[in-house]
């Protein structure tokens, strides 16, 4: 595996942990490369690399899921630099939208001209994970068929992300 592939795979794992959708579900959206690219384009390779490295360390050093979650909170989400980026990754996956980073972050860590709020692509909109989470179709796409709305939603967590301690 070359470095790029390794990074993409780490990005997929991080995304899984943040969104609670497993790698199969994430790949199933067809957006992994797209989002990884978008992230790199906007926050820069350096920050992405740092984020993935911290994630790897948190993962390696956690004994159990609780410890892992604490690590994610303290080392990533609670970090001034990495937190807003990680939250953007979550929102990106759930909605297909890149949200402009907070003002303070932009002032400190650099403004990209691409850092505006936008849908990464038409497909990104329709692949937002939030719709899968609630067993609904994205408004305006993937119509589920006449009358399907009369039945109770079949919300399930089958494709959730699993913390597996590597030995």
């Amino acid at each position, binding site marked *: 595996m070359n470095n790029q*592939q390794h990074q993409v795979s780490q990005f997929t794992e991080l995304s899984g942990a943040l969104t609670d959708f497993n790698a*199969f579900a994430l*790949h*199933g959206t*067809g957006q992994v490369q797209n989002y990884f690219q978008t992230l790199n384009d906007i926050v820069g390779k350096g920050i992405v690399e740092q984020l993935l490295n911290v994630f790897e360390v948190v993962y390696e050093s956690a004994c159990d899921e609780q410890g892992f979650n604490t690590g994610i909170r303290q080392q990533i989400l609670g970090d001034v630099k990495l937190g807003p980026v990680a939250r953007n990754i979550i929102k990106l996956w759930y909605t297909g939208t890149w949200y402009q980073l907070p003002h303070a972050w932009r002032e400190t860590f650099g403004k990209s001209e691409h850092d505006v709020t936008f849908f990464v692509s*038409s497909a990104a909109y329709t692949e937002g994970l939030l719709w899968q989470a609630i067993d609904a179709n994205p408004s305006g796409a*993937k*119509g589920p068929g*006449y009358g*399907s709305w009369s039945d109770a939603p079949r919300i399930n967590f089958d494709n959730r992300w699993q913390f597996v301690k590597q030995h």
Partner: protein
Amino acid sequence: MSERIVNTIEDLYQMLDAAIQLEHATIPPYLTALYSIYPEANLEATATIRAVLVEEMLHMTLSANVLNALGRHPNLLSDGFVPTFPTYLPDGERDFQVSISCFSADTLETFLKIERPGMSQKHSQSGGPKGCVTRADHSKFNLDAIKPLKSSTYSFYSIGDFYDAIIEGIEFLEAQANECGETIFVGDPKFQVSNKYYYSGGGSVVEVTDKASAISALKLVIEQGEGLSKEIFDSEGEISHYYRFEQLKFGRYYQLGDEPGKPTGPKFDVDYDKVYPIKSNPKLADFPDNSALLKAAQDFNQNYRKFLVTINAAFSGQQNLLLGAVCGMFKLKEYASQLIRNPIPTNPQLHAGPTFEIEEGMTGSASRSQTVTPGYHERKEAVQ
């Protein structure tokens, strides 16, 4: 010399069973190719395959209506109904196989062969029955649809030729029955799938109650598939599957007045790179044990089977279930897309896809079509 292929009502049942199996057999390849295309890419190809796919479902329904009109229900759950891919088609075409694979130039060639126009009469093979070509390697052909018919050495050249043989058989058998004051159309009309529940962009379903409606149902299949008159556009300006696919090959639309092979309409791009590289004819065995991918592929097959169960029930009198079946189809499409977008972990250059391995015995029933009302023969015997 042209020999009639359908000579008994049993032959006709057999042929219609095969027809339903045949129409169904095109669905996995079309569906897979369709969802292998990147979203927002190859819009023309997407629209074309989608339109054809939707019409194949209509064709399956039309054939089921004809069989039901004869007093027999189709059985989509019989062993081997879903072919093992790659497969020959159930009408016995022998010069090509159909695969589950991504949209590509090769795939398009196969699609063209599936939908190729029939041989005209003058073109007919010497010695063989009408619309057939003679081939020696029948042993390889493992679909039972055609085997019991009297010739063991022929295959149909095209789907259209196959349907022509069915129409000829219906005319012959119905004339024979009429002579005795009987009809072969003894099925209960309540089993006819109607437009109330069958509803799509692919055209209207024909309820079959007699010879005329049976023939118009079957002609619709031929017309949408390969065209009736070998013209590119039919009288309603609709273009047949074969020429639709040819447009993709040429990257150019046909317009009225064009010669076959020479479209002069607007041009468009077909980009075979904007396609997920699916492993051809993927099998569950290709996916790692205990992987989410394997589970998803198994789930897909389970769901596909459920879909067939529903369709089967709909063809056996519960047509209101078609509404739910359509919803099921939409879900299947999502599941298939997810599989197709996932690289195979052990071989990331290739992507997964639905395997359509519907387990033997999963479906429970061995026989093909089922008798539901006393068929023509039973009734005839009762009268005697």
